[in-house]
């Protein structure tokens, strides 16, 4: 296998390119995805390669984008619509929760939607209003959707290909803060990373830290810093928000008895709540400390002058881990 050294956004492009070459039914659609190659360049060069019928610049209408993709998918195509920023999914929200998630169930399996809705999410890039939120739980709350968030170039390509091949609709949220933050080895060939499996990024015995997406970076940094204080933390990258890999979560927790969850989404109703409940349901007797949530605050995401104060920082994660360990 030959491999390339790619960023996350390049791995998105490579995943699309690989799968479009293998499967004529796969097509890309959305705002500015064609000639412009996407505002983040996630579809760069695909329009030249595959033409106007498979890389489609649509009118500016998210309900139209999601709704027509639903119709296409019901006819057997495999559309991969892009929503330019996850903050602009809401005009298409009705289509997502009323139809995209439910076609299979409503027709008792007669019609299925093999589609993937991609959108960059999250804060930290000094972007304008409505461009920085992290609202993965809206979709995790919706039965019938799978919700995937990668954090490495390798996982990005592998999970995206899995998502495209998945018989069910997938919301694929991309951590734009780390779109270009680092590179990683990505095979040129096709490969998959399974949906529904978390990954242990670092093994440890004192505390389990659960995170995903862009927050894997401050988390790993915090955990490294805490080595000096004699804290040996395990880091679990959730990767699939729904369906959640409860087995890996519980297994890690049973080993450490302490947990911290880090996400940039608001604390109230965030994935931290679901992980905490899972631990309490399945591993209560192993628990040695309250589960600590280091999350966005329950206020609207601020304009960028204050965004660093909103997002979990390395110091906040470190403090959260200390709290869990020293309880």
């Amino acid at each position: 296998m030959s491999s390339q050294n790619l960023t996350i956004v390049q791995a998105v492009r490579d995943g699309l390119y690989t799968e479009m070459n293998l499967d004529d039914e796969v097509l890309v659609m959305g705002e500015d995805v064609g000639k412009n190659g996407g505002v983040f360049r996630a579809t760069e060069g695909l329009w030249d390669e595959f033409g106007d019928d498979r890389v489609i610049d649509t009118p500016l209408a998210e309900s139209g984008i999601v709704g027509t993709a639903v119709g296409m998918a019901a006819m057997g195509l495999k559309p991969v619509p892009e929503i330019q920023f996850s903050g602009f999914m809401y005009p298409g929200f009705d289509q997502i929760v009323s139809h995209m998630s439910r076609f299979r169930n409503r027709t008792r399996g007669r019609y299925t939607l093999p589609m993937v809705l991609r959108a960059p999410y999250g804060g930290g890039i000094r972007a304008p209003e409505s461009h920085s939120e992290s609202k993965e739980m809206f979709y995790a709350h919706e039965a019938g959707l799978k919700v995937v968030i990668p954090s490495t170039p390798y996982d990005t390509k592998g999970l995206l290909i899995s998502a495209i091949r998945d018989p069910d609709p997938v919301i694929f949220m991309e951590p734009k803060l780390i779109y270009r933050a680092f590179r990683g080895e990505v095979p040129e060939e096709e490969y998959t990373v399974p949906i529904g499996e978390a990954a242990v990024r670092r093994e440890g015995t004192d505390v389990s830290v659960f995170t995903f997406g862009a927050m894997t970076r401050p988390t790993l940094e915090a955990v490294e810093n805490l080595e000096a204080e004699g804290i040996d933390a395990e880091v679990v990258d959730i990767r699939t928000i729904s369906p959640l890999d409860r087995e890996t979560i519980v297994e890690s927790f049973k080993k450490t008895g302490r947990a911290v969850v880090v996400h940039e989404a608001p604390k109230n109703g965030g994935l931290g709540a679901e992980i905490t409940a899972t631990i309490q349901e399945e591993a209560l007797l192993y628990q040695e400390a309250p589960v600590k949530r280091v999350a966005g605050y329950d206020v609207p995401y601020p304009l960028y002058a204050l965004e660093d104060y909103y997002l979990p920082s390395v110091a906040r994660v470190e403090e959260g881990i200390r709290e869990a360990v020293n309880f």
Partner: protein
Amino acid sequence: MSVLQRDPQDQVRVLDEDGTVVGEVPDIDDETLVEMYRYMRLARHFDTRAVSLQRQGRMGTYPPLSGQEGAQIGSAIALDEQDWMVPSYREHGASLLRGLPLKQTLLYWMGHEKGNEMPEGVNIFPPAVPIASQIPHATGAAWAKKLRGEDDTAVICYFGDGATSEGDFHEGLNFAGVFDTPNVFFCNNNQWAISVPRERQTASETLAQKATAYGIDGVQVDGMDPLAVYSVTKAALDKAKNPAEGEGRPTLIEAVQYRFGAHTTADDPTVYRDDEEVEKWKAKDPIPRLESFLRETGRIDDEGVEAIEADVKQRVADAIEAAESDPRPDPSEMFNHAYAERTPEIQAQYEEFEALREKFGDEGFLRE
């Protein structure tokens, strides 16, 4: 016959590309005409400076307006004091004319919520980033004025060509038609929605003709001709407040124009459009067009133009100085305005936040 009663395809024009009069010059006093020119120059200079502030890292992503001054100033200057404006994110010029200080606009794009704290008496909504989402608000605001019997007030709403593809455009205009609200829907058709050309938004020949389906008037105007823009906007505002027997209040105006620069400072337009096209539209630049009209008709001379240039530079420099020396917002401000009062949960998070700040200082939060 009103300037609004025409085919949506029949574009209203007063000045040609050289500033020569080719239509009916609206009834505006000399002083206002010169003010119009001053504000257009101000908007252009502000824009140039804002782009360079972004390039120097002194401001975040910024959406430039150059090329669109004729539409913004020509329309906003037609508003009466009590009227309301519901803008998109590109109306820095129109907002300024409505009374929003440039300092506020700068603060907003520098990432401070304070930029949206409208001064008392400035009848303007905060800029709407989600495309077209402001259109139903404008309908609702106008409807409220009508329901309360404030018949002297109209609401102007700005949005782009791309916005006409969203459901909110349809719903906002449809409500306006059904409830006959005092609205002016002002579409800045600058030919592009980022990289997507106007023809990709709709198979309709014009955007103005979409009004027909909502049972309201639609008119197309040369958006780079400030006098024509003034004429149609004024007529539409008058009709919104005082419709003649059998006339509806709302109007859709399609102002045909061009964005000279990038969509935002994060965009590279050379990827999707040719220089030739840009040059073609630059020949229609609204500023020299109005200037030559004012010179030809003896309303302004070299001295007047120079004085305006100096004034404009000073005002922009002052605004930048004021915005940059404005104290950084205190981080705890983010907990203040989610509700009238902090909920117990927000209060607890605020206290935790302050304790962390106490312990780690700002370095505990700021990323490089």
